[in-house]
């Protein structure tokens, strides 16, 4: 049993007929993901890549028994799509949409917190359980099954690091992109907690873009007080000059220092992560 998803997870795609929907639906199906249908209001009754399209999430759930939804609808409609999925009873919502307005996300997160619902994203590349299932847009070729759990707020660095680990013959238990937006659902600590309790995960890689938003102290205190599994971090921006980009340089330096202080080895480049993992 991996984290968040397993091979039986039944997935619904909200926005299945959107611009990149068909390619990714096909790619996920190829990987073995159980996609049971899609939702596009006004297109109920159609078929897409051999899967039924419904007008609403509720109808799709009634017909298919889906418990997970992937949201790919454009930013102006994305918050509404998240709330629709939550109201219909979806338990895990993964949102890859970029640029959702701040106020939409403030209201959406507040509504979700009252229910027992997990949101990954927005602006997340999704979740990939190597060899099992993929929900999102993480290129499956980067990964191979193994016991390293990776959580990242940067999509490109998640792919880059995973590929480097795969090439170093270090497989992964799960890849989770939490997104780099100001207001997100599950954060670093939430995912670390899942990895800590996952029997398939032995070591964890945390990849964090310098951001003013997430609370690094919550993360470091969880790692040092609660975690038994070793963690390695990748923090980009550590060589950047304070004069050129003071904000990024400061966040990168303070984040790297906070992690180093609790004994977490911190890499500067994706290709250095595998060496650090060998040492923990």
């Amino acid at each position, binding site marked *: 049993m991996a984290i968040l998803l397993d091979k039986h997870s039944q997935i619904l795609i909200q926005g299945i007929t959107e611009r990149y929907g068909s390619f990714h639906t096909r790619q996920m199906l190829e990987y073995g993901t159980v996609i049971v249908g899609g939702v596009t209001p006004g297109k109920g009754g159609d078929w897409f890549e051999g899967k039924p399209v419904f007008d609403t999430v509720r109808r799709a759930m009634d017909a298919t028994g889906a418990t997970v939804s992937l949201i790919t609808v454009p930013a102006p409609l994305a918050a509404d799509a998240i709330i629709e999925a939550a109201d219909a009873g979806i338990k895990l919502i993964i949102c890859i949409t970029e640029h959702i307005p701040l106020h939409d996300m403030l209201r959406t997160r507040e509504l979700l917190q009252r229910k027992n619902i997990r949101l990954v994203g927005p602006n997340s590349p999704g979740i990939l359980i190597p060899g099992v299932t993929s929900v999102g847009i993480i*290129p499956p070729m980067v990964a191979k099954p193994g016991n390293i759990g990776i959580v990242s707020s940067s999509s490109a660095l998640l792919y880059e690091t995973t590929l480097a680990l795969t090439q170093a013959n270090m497989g992964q238990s799960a890849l989770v992109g939490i997104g*780099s937006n*100001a207001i997100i659902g599950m954060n670093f600590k939430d995912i670390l907690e899942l990895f800590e309790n996952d029997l398939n995960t032995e070591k964890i890689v945390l990849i964090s*873009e310098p951001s003013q938003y997430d609370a690094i102290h919550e993360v470091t205190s969880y790692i040092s007080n609660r975690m038994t599994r070793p963690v390695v971090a990748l923090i*980009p921006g550590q060589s*950047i000059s304070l004069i050129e980009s003071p904000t990024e340089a400061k966040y990168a330096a303070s984040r790297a220092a906070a992690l180093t202080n609790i004994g977490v080895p911190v890499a500067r480049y*994706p290709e250095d992560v595998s060496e650090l993992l060998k040492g923990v």
Partner: protein
Amino acid sequence: MRLYEYQMKFLLRQAHIPVPEGDVISTPDDAYRIAVELGGDVVLKAQSLNSSRLPGINMKIAHTPAGARDVARRMLSDQLENQPVRQILVEAKAHIQQAIYVTIITDYTAGRPLLLASLEGGKDPHTMTWDNSDIFSREYINPVTGLHLYQANKIASDLDFPHSQWRSFVEIIHHLYQCYVHNDAEKIEINPLVITREGYLLAVDGKMHIDPHALYRQPQLAAMYDSSYETTLQAQARHTEVAYQSFEGQIGCLVNGAGMALTIRDMLHHYGEETSVHPACIVDAGSSASPEEIAAGLRLIMAHPSVQVGLVNIFDGLVEADLLAGAILHTWHELKPTIPTVIRLQGSGAEEAQHMLAAADIPNLIVAKTLSAAIHQAIAMATRSYA
């Protein structure tokens, strides 16, 4: 997106929050005209998106219309933060009895708007830290239900607000929250909100930041964006929705995602320092880059004046690499750049993409397979052209 003070005051007035009478001007004669209309002492405030209020420098008082004209003339020939002053807000001077600080910020960690107020208004907020609970009364707002009346009353009570202005203050807090929500603001700060000698409340100065991703539904605010200080390349980047940073080195970089933008800078710093190779610009086409964004990014790096070598590293999840290769080749044939460029495309369709780029047989377009190979190749070429 930051707003000018005069733009913010326009929005405050729209939200029924009282502001001093006045107008924004761009010539000394208009300053004279407004001062005549207002009568009495006027305050002239040079408008800038970045600098704080500095009495005597970017804020001056004039006692007569002729004095206002002189001050305006001097301000308009001055610079603020290395940029020419183009607009001045001319306002009736308020007689301040008490200065108050009141703001709504977005607490990203809590995921809620946070209302903060203090009786120590008028100070530079950079010297006040908002988590210093000694100075501020604070109240989190539930973004679904909005601000409750009792919360505004609680803030007034915490501040021991004068009873004669209590009701006006509570109303202003209510309107301020409406203003924050209706304008998709990230932050709205009134500093100071003053109680005048005559007993009225007046928003004398402030700052407001708007969520750039909400501008599609805020045409009034989108029209307030000041593009006059942008370079052509900055304007181009904004229109195509890519992030663009310009430096003084030799390598023009196109990447996807903020994390990758930082990594490229780290790696260029690490491997290029010895030979004095640095980035000329970094274009971030977004974590999921579309063919249109890649094409726009390529145009930007080729147009940058100090670029001697191009470096494109895209590891995209959303779009197949071969589609991006197609966009790159299409743009390349259109621009016909002479600048040597290293291109590394990874992700689904990467093999096909590398094949397409190689088959195009363009002498100054070099295909790299890994991130570090791309970096080393770009540095080597920049060093060669440098020597």
